[in-house]
């Protein structure tokens, strides 16, 4: 962590460039994360936790930019759209180790 002025040729010094980033793309990113993770079987609380955790900067940044209420609305919408079914994966019993077929449910029920 540098505390002094960087040298002119310091490769760690980022040259500022304005990138097109607006509310629309931030909202779309938040929506993409919410929908993808609902489809993976995450619960509302788990997804809100992802947005709350500053370690996940993309999701957290969206929460900072749009507000917790708006993120809650986006997550609720994703849960409403994709949260009412669950995908079940069935693996056949192993011929070498005879067991019953292994069924895994991928959605935590709301």
């Amino acid at each position: 962590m540098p505390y002094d002025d960087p040298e002119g040729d310091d490769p760690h010094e980022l040259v500022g460039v304005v990138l097109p980033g607006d509310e629309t793309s931030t909202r779309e990113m938040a929506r993409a994360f919410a929908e993808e993770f609902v489809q993976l079987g995450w619960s509302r609380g788990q997804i809100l936790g992802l947005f709350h955790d500053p370690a996940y900067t993309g999701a957290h940044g969206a929460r900072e930019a749009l507000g917790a209420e708006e993120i809650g609305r986006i997550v609720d919408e994703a849960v409403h759209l994709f949260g009412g079914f669950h995908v079940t994966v069935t693996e056949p019993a192993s011929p070498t180790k005879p067991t019953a077929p292994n069924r895994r449910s991928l959605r935590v029920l709301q």
Partner: protein
Amino acid sequence: MPNVKNWQLGREMSYPYEAKYPSRQFAFVFNINRCIACQTCTMACKSTWTFSKGQEHMWWANVETKPYGGYPQFWDVKILERLEAANPAGQVWSGDVSESPEQPYGQFDGQTIFEAGQKTLSPDSARVLGYLPSDEEWNSPNIYEDNPVGGRGVRDQLHKSGEQLPIHKTWFFYLARICNHCSYPACLAACPRKAIYKRPEDGIVLLDQKECRGYRKCVEACPYKKAMYRGNTRVSEKCIACYPRVEGTDPESDGDPMETRCMASCVGQIRMQGLVKIDSDGSWAEDRQHPLYYLVHVAKVALPLYPQLGTQPNGYYIPPRWVPRPYLRQMFGPGVDRAIERYANPDRELLAVLQLFRRSNKIIFRYEFQEGPKVYERQVGERKVTIYNDTVIAYGREGQELFRTSIEEPVHVRPDVHANSI
């Protein structure tokens, strides 16, 4: 230099060696829309292959935050800058995207790193346009990717809203990267010792450490910067695609080909890896029921990373749907708009194939899609979601069923003792 066919560029290109192709090729698809940069893949690789002294700076698998991040820092900006300097304003694509497997993304009219190298480098032994990253660029993966430099003199104080430093005010996405095990590897082309080779059975690119003398030509040439030099052994090293797992010789694999460590550990389930059939001309042989063939050549939602560099990489990405298109077109080529349109409005088969991601650690060689009845419909505003109880069945190398998925309505069974509560 001989000419070889590069289907990603829609044309032939020069390459230092005659074309030679494996019967199957190690390939993978990463769905960026799901990646949250948890770095579990990074640590799975690190703890398996690069945990020793002298390998501290090596991250064969890494996840970097775009647009600011890169490991080594600025790797893509630097090679794109060099190509632009070699061929000013000429790095462009022509023609339209098409359904043809010959020119799916149109034609690249600019120069690849091999072609630009021929024109700009001397002596003749220099075959590939590249550069050697500095130690600083290797040493600090992820630094300042998410956070710009913070306030001077404020030591270790947490930001009021939780983060230590302010965050960049722009869009983000996370780019997970490993060696692309390219069809025309730049590392292999540049090695004066011929220490790098591509395996005929699976196209995995390996570096023979007995032959390597540490000239670092591979480090300089690989545009993705996935060949790395190890100071204490004075030879270079690179991702080996966890080949014992892919071969099925790893004890854990039980004889069946298994996906790599970074794939198997993926929390966001963004990854699928396989072995695709290759034609005698280097293009993918038609294999309609192979999930990777479907994603790359049928649905065309998965695109190569910087195809214009010319190495024909075998890593493919489903681009993030929220990022400005010009940035994505530079990174994944002209197929971006079609890929996002199809991914955002998936048909039933694409939805089914997406269910194959990370349901098993065994490599899928074929899938079957069976249509089922409509089971679910919901709507928010104009957006309507309809789900069918379609089944997708995955098969392994010997044709054995690996797993199948189906859709179920949630059912809650109340326990006897609490009959009045859920």
